[in-house]
């Protein structure tokens, strides 16, 4: 199986406190891989290490066959690794449209089409294009964060808890958008505390606890696993 992303023996720390130990994981092209785990398991830290905004203290990250462990975050975006960070992190004082333009910062062409596509995907953003992003509701900000990431034409999309803090209806809308992206062939690594939904849409999944991968397997298989059911699915 060819791999688009391959993480091997990755470690990361905050000061002297280790947040990731010997993490290995792979994502094949076109797959939707889910990463689930409870609070503080290290999911966000792993995504940040993959994007390069949190340095790895050991291990190796390869993208499309080449080692990217030492590259700056900006270089990784240019290669196609694009993240929707936890907590949306829109540029609050800038307009919705400017947020999208900046999403396409690494691209020279296709900005207009990208914006048009984002507005087709989330029409509410078109209505509010001139408003500051900070004036949007939480759900709209999440849509904007996702649309902003898509502007960079990702080859690998990293999503960090896109449903966090959203009402069920909006969560469903976000998951529908994720499913559509997957159908269109985008490779996705999805971090979720909402394990039920994540495992349902995932081709493959990893379970993380205190900085380690403790379980992995096809999404449907993990969803039937007794330990996973007890710990993450509330059954």
């Amino acid at each position, binding site marked *: 199986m060819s791999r688009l992303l391959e993480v091997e023996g990755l470690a990361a720390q905050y000061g002297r406190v280790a947040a990731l130990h010997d993490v290995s994981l792979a994502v094949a092209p076109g797959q939707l891989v889910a990463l689930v785990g409870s609070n503080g398991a290290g999911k966000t830290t792993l995504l940040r290490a993959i*994007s*390069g*905004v949190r340095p790895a203290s050991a291990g190796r990250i390869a993208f499309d066959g080449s080692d990217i462990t030492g590259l*700056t*975050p*900006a270089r990784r*975006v*240019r290669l196609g690794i*694009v*993240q929707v*960070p936890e907590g949306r*992190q*829109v*540029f*609050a*004082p*800038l307009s919705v449209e*400017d947020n999208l*333009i*900046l*999403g396409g*910062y*690494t691209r020279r062409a296709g900005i207009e089409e990208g914006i048009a596509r984002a507005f087709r995907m989330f029409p509410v953003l078109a209505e509010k294009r001139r408003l500051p992003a900070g004036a949007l509701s939480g759900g709209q900000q999440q849509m904007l964060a996702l649309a*902003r*990431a898509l502007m*960079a034409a990702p080859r690998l999309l990293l999503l960090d808890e896109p449903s966090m803090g959203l009402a069920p209806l909006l969560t469903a809308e976000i998951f529908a958008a994720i499913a559509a992206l997957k159908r269109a062939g985008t490779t996705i690594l999805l971090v979720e505390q909402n394990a039920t939904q994540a495992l349902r849409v995932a081709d493959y999944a990893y379970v993380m606890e205190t900085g380690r991968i403790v379980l992995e397997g096809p999404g449907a298989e993990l969803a039937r696993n007794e330990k996973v059911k007890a710990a993450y699915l509330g059954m």
Partner: protein
Amino acid sequence: MLSTILQFLFSGLTVGAIYALVALGFTLIYNASHVINFAQGEFVMIGGMATVYLVDAGAPIWVAAPAAILLAVAVGVALERLAIAPARDASVVALIVITIGASIFLRGVAQVVWDRNFHTLAPFSGDEPIRVMGASFLPQSLWVLGVSLLAVLALAWFFGRTVLGKAVLATANNRLAAQLVGIETRAVMTLCFALSAFLGAMGGVLVTPITLTSYDAGVMLGLKGFCAAILGGMGSGVGAIVGGLVLGVAEAMGAGFVSSAYKDALAFVLILLVLCFRPSGLVGARASERV
């Protein structure tokens, strides 16, 4: 009476425009890094002193001034690359102390390379006063105001209309998100130091024919620019401009109608008053909105 007021207003606006340029420099760096760059005044000094020396060496003003501004920009970039960037993970207070050290260092170098005397430049368009309604002002004032206005318009265009300008705003607002969309945030920091050195040095060149310059001319101008930035609300570009002009006019009126002995103290009294009644400055966001 009216002509006297007009006279003070005009000289106040002239000095105020320079304060505003320095204040904009503080604002740029503060927004990008939360660092208050106390070497800001030294950029003004380098602009003035280097121009004086190049002109003395025989260069025409239109060569000397851009070269001096370029030198200040190089110093600004070097300050960021060599002193601020390597200490990126240090606390903001530590970074501010670094800039204070840099300002002392730059004054020292200026003393050695140049000298300890006061210098002036010939006004760009002669010194025949222009008369308006009984008040008279120097053509150099028009240069100061005109070029400052152009600089402000250019900045407004840069931040409002260009993707790079928006990338700077984005980095100031949310560094993590800026990195994640592929903005080279370190280069943005360097750019902010370069821009702010540019603005300061430009002010230094423009004002030297009016106020003289010396190796330590940056101390007072830097302090006044800082006051202007606080007055307008630290972090606000419009605030920096308003703060600079208000401070300049208040000083000129104070010196004219009360006593010039208190001119410099006035800035601090003004700051105390504004901070008492509007803690986030004349134009700044309300304190609760800023994190």
